[in-house]
């Protein structure tokens, strides 16, 4: 068995063997039909593998690629957007669940109701304050800052907001190559 193994190593190693090893192998093959069959079979496979023809694709292969490219891009973009949406919604739901779970664990039902009412109350107060603050600003600013500067400031603010939204959109498309 070990002897066979040695000769099998010589037959299937894929590297060139020395002339002494070759002579040794030939002598063994003459005496061992099992190894001889394997050797001849491997020689036949090798010969056939080397003579196999290269198969060409259909003539419209490139045409098909060009035709499908736009669809593939659109599909990839849609998938990417869906992935982003799924990740963000899963993250939001998880954050809400964790917050809710922690609140349930840490607070009693009465304390929880009280906390919710307080939060709503605080929110209303903050909204009122913001409303009063913006009203005061609108009343005070025009005499101090000319209309032209207010317009520039508002436009810059709007532009930055648009840029911010655009950046988020670009990040959501990362990984999708587009022209």
């Amino acid at each position: 068995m070990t002897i066979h193994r040695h000769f099998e190593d010589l037959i299937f190693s894929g590297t060139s063997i020395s002339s002494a090893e070759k002579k040794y192998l030939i002598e063994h093959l003459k005496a061992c039909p099992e190894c001889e069959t394997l050797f001849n079979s491997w020689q036949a496979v090798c010969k056939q593998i080397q003579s196999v023809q290269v198969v060409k694709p259909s003539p419209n292969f490139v045409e098909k690629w060009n035709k499908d490219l736009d669809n593939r891009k659109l599909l990839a973009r849609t998938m990417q957007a869906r992935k982003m949406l799924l990740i963000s919604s899963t993250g939001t739901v998880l954050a809400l669940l964790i917050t809710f779970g922690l609140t349930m664990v840490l607070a009693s039902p009465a304390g929880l109701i009280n906390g919710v009412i307080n939060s709503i109350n605080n929110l209303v107060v903050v909204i009122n304050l913001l409303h009063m603050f913006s009203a005061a600003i609108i009343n005070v600013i025009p005499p101090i800052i000319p209309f032209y500067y207010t317009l520039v400031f508002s436009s810059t603010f709007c532009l930055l907001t648009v840029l911010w939204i655009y950046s988020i959109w670009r990040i959501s498309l990362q990984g999708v190559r587009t022209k």
Partner: protein
Amino acid sequence: MTNLDADLLKQIKQGDDLAFTTLLEHFQTPVFNLCFRMLGNRQEAEDAAQETFWRAYQGINKYDPNRSFSTWLLSIAAHFCIDLLRHRSLPSFSMDVLPEGNIPDPLPNPEKSVMDAMKQAQVQQVISLLKPEDRAMIILFYWYDFSEKEIGKSLSLSVSAVKSRLHRIRKQLATLWLLSEKQFSPVTEGT
């Protein structure tokens, strides 16, 4: 063309679809041939080749220009075909081993042509009996002249693992060839 021209690569990275089409024209035959040898079916091979180019198109920025482009591209094709074969419930072998346009001219020696076609079908069948990864190794090694190192890099294996697996696959191929001779011999004897 085994490596990619720097200008062409730059154009492709900049999103020039026409430049990518040039690349596709150069590499369509080796990629398709690999897919065909892996899958044994013309239609599947064509879809797999298209998918390979799409993956290359998407991942062109990840390509390392110091590495051979054909090695990178064929690795993508091999991986995709391995995945496809793993998802197949049953091993399949199509008699579509010599597609139209590749059948040797029956003249002047029709008998020899038929014999050659039969032998090629036999090779394809024997290869289709190998495991997907083994199939890729043999195809890359014998038809694409990949070195053991390149195969190792492509299939995430060490060089010694590639060597020992190639040794095992060669023996397996020899055994499968013997078995297939019985299947193919009645036809060949009759011709």
